[in-house]
């Protein structure tokens, strides 16, 4: 479509920014911050540009850039973007500037921002790489900055949390690496060795083989999502990470898991995905209910949000493996919605922490009286997280459910009850934090500041807009989803079920 290697630039800009920041003197934090902000804003702008230039009639990969990288191993620098990854890229591009602008590390801006930008580069890369090896590289490299962000700028238990996060994820990717290599070699046959996603997707694997390989991939992604029972790294990491870290972690990083499941798991091994669907559906539903219940009982505001993520991501997994146009589209969209609303939630919790230096729900009380606007913002974000129609959270969730209902009725019936629990834990928390008469500790709670508002406003805007008018988003996601399902159909003969009275 265009010769300009926009996607490569998307990765390089933040990376370059990171190096630049790292080289800059630490004595001038404001300059460092400015550079970081510029880099991230530029990236964001580029990602928006991609969104604008994206051809929604084209279901295939766009802006593809393809260069050979490690010839002897058949590895290439192959980037491309389609409806499934498009909005994740935009999300990444948009959230980072907000985080850079909106959150301050308590020490050593320079290092913090440098890691942040590196993280952005890694995330961008993993969302747009179409080469398994390349993807793995980004997928792994992301751990490093996140590890340092948590361990360096986190709270009391940060070292443990960071370690847990790093090792937990690494175990998963260890298995995946073997899976990747095995896939390449098994698919290769007599031809040349290649790690190119599109080439490999053409290969047919014997069912048994495909299933093993699929699980090798799935484990890694299941850890990342996280799917019950591999989720315990998440509450610790989220809670201990600095606000910015949590926002990225919940907003973008978890999506690596669901995205990976869709892009690599299902796309490469449709048969295995179909074969094991009931397992994943069950785990997803368990995750939804389990996460919600666990969230209800948390005493720490951040932990609560973290567990809510477990529940929300459960919906996405449900959608992916229910494998209907609606459910997958909903899942992909839910990726973004969850990113926005949970990201915003973490920002808000962070602001509360900055003011009160506690995350304990029991320490907070009656904030709505002293900071009504802040409370209002929190309310809106919370409602979107609960999934109230008219806000973004609903659309994705609803699509997932209505789509899954066609293929996985009873799982859906149970999963839908998750919306009740979501209301339960969030409203309960909201009541304990914002309602009632503030005690003297909380009566001094400051109203939302201009900068904070500036950071939150875009997110609120997205929340409301996508809630009321999701069509533009859906129009871009759906073709790629259909293409994926057609691919599954070619491989397995599975047909996307249509409701009676509708001719596909």
């Amino acid at each position: 479509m265009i010769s300009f290697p926009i996607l490569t630039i998307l990765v390089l800009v933040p990376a370059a920014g990171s190096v630049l920041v790292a080289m800059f003197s630490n004595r001038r934090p404001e300059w460092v911050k400015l550079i970081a902000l510029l880099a991230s804003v530029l990236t964001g702008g580029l990602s928006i540009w991609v969104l604008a230039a994206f051809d929604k009639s084209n279901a295939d990969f766009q802006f593809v850039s393809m260069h050979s990288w490690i010839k002897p191993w058949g590895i290439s620098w192959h980037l491309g973007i389609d409806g499934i990854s498009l909005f994740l890229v935009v999300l990444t591009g948009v959230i980072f500037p907000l985080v850079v602008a909106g959150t301050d590390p308590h020490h050593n801006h320079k290092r913090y921002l440098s890691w942040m930008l590196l993280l952005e580069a890694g995330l961008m890369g993993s969302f747009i790489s179409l080469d398994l090896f390349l993807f793995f590289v980004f997928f792994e490299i992301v751990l490093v900055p996140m590890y340092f962000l948590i361990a360096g700028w986190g709270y009391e238990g940060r070292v443990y949390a960071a370690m847990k996060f790093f090792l937990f994820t690494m175990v998963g990717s260890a298995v995946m690496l073997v899976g990747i290599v095995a896939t390449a070699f098994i698919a290769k046959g007599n031809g040349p060795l290649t790690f190119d996603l599109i080439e490999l997707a053409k290969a047919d694997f014997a069912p048994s083989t495909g299933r093993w390989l699929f699980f090798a991939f799935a484990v890694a992604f299941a850890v990342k999502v996280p799917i019950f029972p591999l989720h315990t790294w998440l509450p610790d990491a989220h809670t201990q990470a600095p606000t910015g870290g949590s926002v990225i972690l919940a907003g973008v990083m978890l999506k690596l898991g669901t995205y990976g499941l869709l892009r690599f798991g299902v796309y490469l091994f449709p048969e295995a995905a179909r074969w094991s669907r009931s397992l994943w559906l069950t785990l997803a539903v368990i995750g939804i209910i389990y996460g919600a219940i666990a969230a209800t009982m948390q005493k720490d505001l951040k932990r609560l949000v973290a567990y809510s993520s477990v529940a929300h991501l459960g919906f996405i997994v449900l959608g992916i493996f229910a494998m209907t146009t609606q459910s997958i589209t909903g899942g992909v969209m839910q990726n973004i919605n969850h990113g926005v609303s949970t990201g915003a939630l973490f920002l808000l919790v962070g602001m509360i922490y900055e003011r009160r230096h506690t995350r304990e729900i029991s320490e907070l009380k009656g904030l709505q009286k002293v900071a009504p606007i802040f409370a209002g913002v929190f309310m809106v974000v919370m409602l979107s997280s609960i999934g109230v129609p008219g806000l973004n959270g609903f659309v994705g969730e609803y699509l997932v459910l209505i789509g899954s209902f066609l293929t996985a009725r009873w799982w859906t019936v149970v999963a839908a009850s998750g919306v009740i629990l979501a209301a339960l834990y969030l409203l309960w928390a909201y009541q304990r934090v914002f309602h009632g008469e503030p005690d003297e500790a909380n009566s001094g709670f400051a109203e939302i500041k201009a900068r904070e508002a500036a950071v939150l406003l875009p997110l609120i805007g997205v929340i409301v807009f996508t809630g009321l008018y999701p069509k533009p988003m859906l129009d871009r996601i759906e073709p790629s989803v259909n293409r994926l399902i057609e691919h599954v159909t070619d491989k397995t003969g599975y047909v996307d079920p249509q409701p009676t009275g509708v001719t596909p």
Partner: protein
Amino acid sequence: MLDIVWLIPALPLAGFALILLFGRRLGDPKAGYLATLMCGGAFVVTVGVFFDLLSKSAEERQHISKVFSWVPVGSLKVDLAFLADPLSITMCLFVTGIGTLIHLYAIGYMHGDPRFSKFFLYLNLFALSMLVLVLGENMLVTFLGWEGVGTCSYLLIAFWHERESAATAGKKAFITNRVGDWGFMMAMFFAFQATGTLSYLGVNAAASTMAQSTATAIALFAFIGAVGKSAQLPLYLWLPDAMEGPTPVSALIHAATMVTAGVFLMCRMSPILNAASSYAPTLIAVVGAATALFAATIAVAQNDIKRVLAYSTVSQLGYMFLAVGSGAYTAAIFHMVTHAFFKALLFLGSGAVIHGMNHEQDMRRMGALRKVMPVTAATFIVGWLAIAGVPPFAGFWSKDDILLAAYDKSPVLWAVGLVTALLTAYYMTRQVIMVFYGEARWHDAHAEHGAHGDFKPHESPSIMLLPLVLLAGLSIVGGGLNLPFNAHTEKLTQWLEPVLGVHESETSKVPLAVIATIVALVGIAASVMIYAKHRAKPIEPKILADGWYYDETVSRFMGGPGRKAFGALAWYDATVIDGAVNGVGRLVRDTAQRIRTVQSGNVRNYAAAIGVGVVLLLAWFVVVRGSR
């Protein structure tokens, strides 16, 4: 005129937006006027649409105005579209109409409240959601409004959120509603799978062709939603607590609009209900009747002026569902309308009383108020007569229709309805007497209060009285909408016929009507005997006062076992699952420590280790591989 249906919700939306932006600057009372203006405007538009529809022939009284395509994915095509037909317009009429009055009233009631403008912000948002709900062309749009009103009720009930009770009540309302919403969602999913669309027209059209089981499923799940929204057994819990909200809210939510959404939904989907297997409607009727009776018994023993009304609302809603279950949808709508009139009146009246009593809600501290607040008293009495079912007030006619239908369904249901009617008359009378008659108990009241010098209940400002008067008028003549004398006088039936069909009944109406009237009078008489003439001791057993301990049991379960179970799961997560993870780490460390002892630092041990290795290797090669 029909093309501007979208304007009906648009106006409150505009109000919402304006107040959101400039509310603080407008302040008290301008914001109120703005909101009222918008709601009133909506009413005017509605009237216009109404007449436009009226001018058309019955068949083409149906107009869809699509705003934009909302959620189009694959075979799922959902538009944000509004359906203007007799049913929705009827709803709109009284939603906007009564809504306007309540807005107006609220200006006076909320005067001086620090969050005045915010209140109207919520009110407009509520009106908007309600209108979306009723105008929705498909289930999803309805659901949008459905959840919207739920959210607004949460916001409004918890309006005075500094009060723990208020906050809790709001939360309770929202969550209980969510349970219902789950049902509604299920209904949608079944409908979509069965018909591939969510628009009412499509689904209803397919009703005749779809499998009966599917129809039943849709109907029952939708009913679950309705139960949640319309506070039927077993989900009525939230409604009495919702009295924590400001009185206009109670009026708006409980009397006129929100709670009737459930009934509306059932009527909207009546074809499905008809297609469903017979036990579905029966179930609905039974639940309705049971709720009606149950709530009425509780209302008998309440002392909070608003709680009485709340339970009576639950009871009246039970009536409506009884009607729906009996297939008399028109009757249900009819009663909905009249009930909207008189219940709104009663609530606002009680609000006026509370206002005049400086937020005193306990009827035992009132009495003889008719002297100090005559207008309120007068209007309230009208409402009382209406709800008690005394001809020719509105309540009598609508309730009569329902009882008739119930009788056709089954005499038992009819009997239950009748008992409920008796009780209704009884407790309403009790309330009127306790509040407006007898000796004034509020002089001593303030002694305990001791708050503000010589305390004198006062009549409310005219801006609050005006709505009362208007509503009182409506409560008197409201019955005129659907007089059962002959087909010609049954205006509402004819009007709604294209949507809801007619409920044929060969039972002669007169005897039933007579019986109903007698029963009502008996109830009133009994109440008078007890509370005015003190001929007998009041029968107010604690169990009734405490609502059969149902609420307590539930909340005790939630707070006790329920919470424990949740706690157990959290414990499991922290101990077992996370424990397993950390356990692996510990395992590694321990093994390492054990191996470490071999690393003793002594050369000879190392040599020994090497030697062992040698022997093992030799054994493998010589014995295993060598001996072939």
